[in-house]
């Protein structure tokens, strides 16, 4: 259960949104839409604590995240605009480091499987990430969701730069996560093909 109460965001001298209140129940996917610059990214960064809110509170399972501190960071997986990949490491190495730093000892087999699931085959897994295309890099970053054990996923434009196959694969993964009682908060420009009963919408008006 993720609650946002009366949240305000000011970036630089601009007020992006104020008085934002919403609630996402377990087993739901919240799709955040809105124009460029309406504060989607800022909202997601606030949800994961990268950006302290100007006003308002964010609660995880009823407790304000400020009080949860470090343990809250163990509750979610965040994939932002940036892929968080080192160009000099292979997708496999990147995924293994990311999983281990998230506190999970993911085996090499599990990581290979995750990369395979996003359509990065054994050959690509051996290349340095720097030579991959934008779409491949994005998929390589999203592979973290296949090894993530966290209940809350915060995803910034997860479908950007993905082809149809990868979009379908990601949609299935998201649906499986919410069906299992997880929560997804994703900013997006397009429709998400998850079954409507799992969906919640929020629109940041520009």
């Amino acid at each position, binding site marked *: 259960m993720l609650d946002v109460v009366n949240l305000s965001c000011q970036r*630089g*001298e*601009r*007020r*992006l*949104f*104020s*008085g*934002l*209140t*919403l*609630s996402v129940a377990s087993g739901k996917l919240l799709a955040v839409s809105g124009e460029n610059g*309406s504060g989607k990214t800022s909202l997601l960064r606030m949800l994961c604590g990268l950006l302290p809110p100007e006003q308002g509170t964010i609660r995880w399972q009823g407790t304000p995240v400020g009080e949860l501190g470090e343990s809250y960071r163990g509750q979610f997986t965040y994939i932002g605009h940036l892929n968080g990949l080192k160009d000099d490491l292979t997708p496999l190495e990147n995924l293994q480091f990311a999983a281990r730093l998230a506190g999970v000892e993911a085996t090499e087999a599990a990581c290979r499987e995750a990369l395979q699931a996003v359509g990065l085959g054994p050959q690509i897994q051996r290349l340095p990430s720097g030579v991959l295309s934008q779409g491949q890099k994005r998929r390589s970053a999203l592979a973290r969701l296949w090894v993530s054990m966290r209940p809350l996923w915060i995803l910034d434009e997860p479908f950007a730069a993905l082809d149809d196959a990868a979009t379908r694969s990601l949609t299935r993964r998201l649906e499986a996560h919410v069906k299992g009682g997880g929560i997804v908060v994703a900013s997006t420009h397009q429709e998400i093909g998850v079954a*409507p009963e799992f*969906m*919640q*919408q*929020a*629109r*940041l*008006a*520009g």
Partner: protein
Amino acid sequence: MSVTDINWFKYSSPQALYPLAGKLTPWFSALAVILMGAGLYIGLLLAPTDFQQGDSYRIIFVHVPAAWMSMFLYVVMALWAAIGLGLKARPSYMMAQAIAPTGAMFTFLALLTGSLWGKPTWGTWWVWDARLTSELILFFLYLGVMLLRTSIDDARRADRASAVFALVGVVNVPIIYFSVQWWNTLHQGASVSATAAPKMAAMMLLAMLIMSLGFWMYSIAVILARLRCVIREREERSSVAGQVERPVAVGGV
């Protein structure tokens, strides 16, 4: 009226601070003029000639107060920076921002007059004495705080980054001072001992104290005036950028 009736947070918003600073500035300016006038009168006209250094010692009537102010203002700036970081209070960052240029100016003056005092006293413009060297480092630290602020566009980030650096500096200045003193003992003979301060006659001490007070009042006046500029500049930037309250529509399914 009991103490609890006073709302101490009344002046914690820039809107309330602005007129307050405006009201206080003339008083501190007047005090500064009177005290500096008196200090100059006593220091230049009444105080006796020092039997060791002759009249060159009179430089300390500006040098010592400038040096004191430079260090004092750095500590005050760091204090405001710490309050800003601790309480997330915008006005204290503004205070820190307003203090820095005046502190840097006094540091520069302390270096310049110290050098002008050193030439007739030690026969050289510069000695690597712990106090002068620390003053030089202090000057660099002030420049660092100011340049870090101006190179960051986002006001919030600029406030907090320069506050962190100001605090790092305040921890380091005593260590630097100690290390340079240590260095001086290692390289004996390479420098002149700077502790040969003249034995102060009461009149000299009085002049120095009054000048210090005058500099202090001057600093408060000019810092408050600059604080007003800072408040206005920030207000203007936010109004130009369009501080529009955007309505938010949230629909659940």
